Structure formats: C-alpha cells, structure tokens
C-alpha cells in the first residue's frame, strides 16, 4: 500500500539510527555466547533501547 509505512518498517528505520548501541550490545553477547543468561547484557540493552525510543519519537 503506497503512502503507508508498515509498523515493522518504522521499527526498522528507528533501529537503523542506533548502530553504535546495537553493535555494542551484539559484541557483549558474542564475546561469550556459550554462557548467555537472562539480562547478561542488560546495561548495553537498555542503552540500545533508550536510543531506539528517542529515535522513534523524533
């Protein structure tokens, strides 16, 4: 449908502005992916999410 952006596309666009935070989070997980547990990289994820929320609302 032209003229209408799908929610997932909006989401993707917002995430695309947070490459630094996203890659920091990814690095934290990949550094030791044999022992991933819940909230292992919570700080990095919250930074990523904050960035996403800001870029979504901007």
């Amino acid at each position, binding site marked *: 449908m032209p003229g209408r952006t799908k929610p997932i596309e909006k989401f993707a666009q917002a995430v695309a502005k947070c490459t630094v935070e996203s890659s920091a989070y990814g690095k934290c997980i990949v550094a030791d992916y044999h022992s991933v547990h819940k909230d292992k990289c919570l700080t990095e994820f919250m930074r*990523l999410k904050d960035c996403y929320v800001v870029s979504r609302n901007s």
Partner: protein
Amino acid sequence: MTMRPANLLPSLRPFLRRSATRRRALITPIASRNYATQAPGNPIYQIFNRGTKWQQKDRAAENVERSRKVDYLKDEVAMRLAERLLDINRHFNHVLDLGANSCNIARALTLPSPFPEMNAPALSTRLSQLTAVDSSHALLHRDEDLPFNREINLTRRVLDEETTLPFEDESFDAVLSSLSMHWINDLPSQLAQINRVLKQDAPFIAAMFGGDTLYELRTSLQLADQERRGGVSTHVSPLADVRDMGGLLQKAGFKMLTVDVDDIIVDYPDTFALMQDLQQMGESNAVLSREKGPIQRDVLLANEGIYRELHGNEDGSLPATFRLIYMIGWKEGPNQSDPLPRGSGEINIKDILGGGDIRYYV
C-alpha cells in the same frame, strides 16, 4: 475349647494353595500380562500446522505486488530444478507439480533454454500437460493472467497436498516439487504416495529447504531470546537433513537415487528485511508448538545487534543461507539398470588406476 487352631492351619494350607495355583493357571494369561500395543500403521507426528501454513500463503499472495517481488528464491530454485529435467531425454505426457506455490516451475519451463548455442526449444515443448497442485488458492492463481500461461498446457488444482492424492495409480510421467515439501508433516507417506501415482520408470524430482537453512537467524534469535527472556522458543522450523532424505526415498520404493545439496546465500540490509521477505513468501514459522503472536519487540531489537555481530558481512549487509536439497528418485520399472550385486566385480580397480601400494596415513 473346641477350636484347635494349631491343627486347623495345616489342614487349611493345602486347600488354599491348591486353589491359588488353579486360579493362577486359569487367569494369568488374560489378566496379569498386558503388552503395550500400537495402532496399525506408522505413527504420524504432527509438527506443522497446515491450517496456519495455508493462511500464511493465502495472505501473502493477496498482496500481489509484494508477493511477486519476493519470488526471487522460488524462481531461482524452480529454474535449477527445471534444468535437471533437461538431462532426461524423453517426452512427458502428464507431469504433476506438487506444492506449486505460484506455479514457479511452470514459469521456469517456459523460459528459453539456458544453452542458446544448442538452439533447443523451451522445456515446456517436451511436456504435453502439467498439473499444478497447491493448498492456497490465492497463491496458485496469482499469476493466471501472465503470458507464460499460454505457452504451456497448465491445469491448476487447489488441494491440500498432504492429504491422500486424488490421482489414479501410475498416472504421471514425472512428479516435480519445488520448495514446499519442507512443510509436510508425514514425509514418508507423502513420498510413498508420489511413488504410487508415478508410472513405471518415471522420475520424481524435488527441491526442498533442509538442514542448515537460515542457521544465522536461528542462532541469533536463540541468543536474543536467551538473553532477553531467559529461555528459547521455536522461531525457525525444524528441517529434514540431507542424510535422512536418501533413506526416506529408499523406504518409499524409489530406485537410482540422487541427492545433492546447494547453498544459496542472499544478502539483506537488515534482519527486518529478511523476516519481512520470509513472511511475504508465506514461509513464516508454522510449527504447532510455536508461540502465538509476533516476536517481542525487545527480542527483535536484540536480534538485530547479535545477527550483525555474529554473521554480518564486512559491507554491512547480513547474509542468510538457504540450503537446498535436490533429489531425484525413479519408480521401479522393467529394463531399469540396477547396481550389480556386491562382490561381483571381476576387475581389480588397482590395475586400472596404475597400481602402487596402498599407504596408510596415521
């Protein structure tokens, strides 16, 4: 005073004992031995929800423009599959396309021959009739009006290919199937049915997703799930392995098997583009035990970062591997060449290859 228990007991004991033995002899075979029994036929494991699959395909095909755009993978595989027909030098009267999607095979058959120097006509001229079968009406009839329909005698038929095939025994000169068998629950029975509808000495040629397809997405979603939610959920369907297919084909009665593997790696800008394309293809997850509803945003957000770190290309794109299993099996027929019995060789291969001692490397 009258009771003498000490005497009474011994007199009772033989009586009791005899009765117990008799009862045991009469009753034991029926009462105390229960064997677990299995209902006749093979057990059928339900892994995929066929209803959901049908819905996904139907919905995807409703958006014709988008749906055509993501046909790149199915068209490519259909073309590679059609090329395999080139090797068989005969005319096919009636061919079945099982799980036809949007008739990608029919389209591939009408394309000009890949070897222009041989000046061969399109493959469709070697077919008299092609019957395309799929469960989704919208997807099957999506391209009804395109010009390729006029170049091939194509009949479309909507039916769930997993149910009993409503065709007579030995009615097809070939059965083709491209990228749909990976959603079949009961593969052995499906293959046996294909074998049933094939004429003697007729080929079954198929391509399906297998093994490590989308392993990048599978692993990164697992890590994202684990870190965000503390557990793993099925997001990518289980697929058949190359090693299994040979055995399955053999069990279904096919002869002269060929199974080979081909990887197609597609680069995507981000994970969202990949997942959107999969959805538009109608290839979203349809595992029965999956979590209903979309994947959580947090997990998607986490997945993007992990996928890029773990698998990303240097130029910033994300590769997605599609592993294709191609298989060819022939229905048994007279005059078909068989492998010679084991040990019947009379020539030493060492003599032909020029001899030399066999050395063992440890």
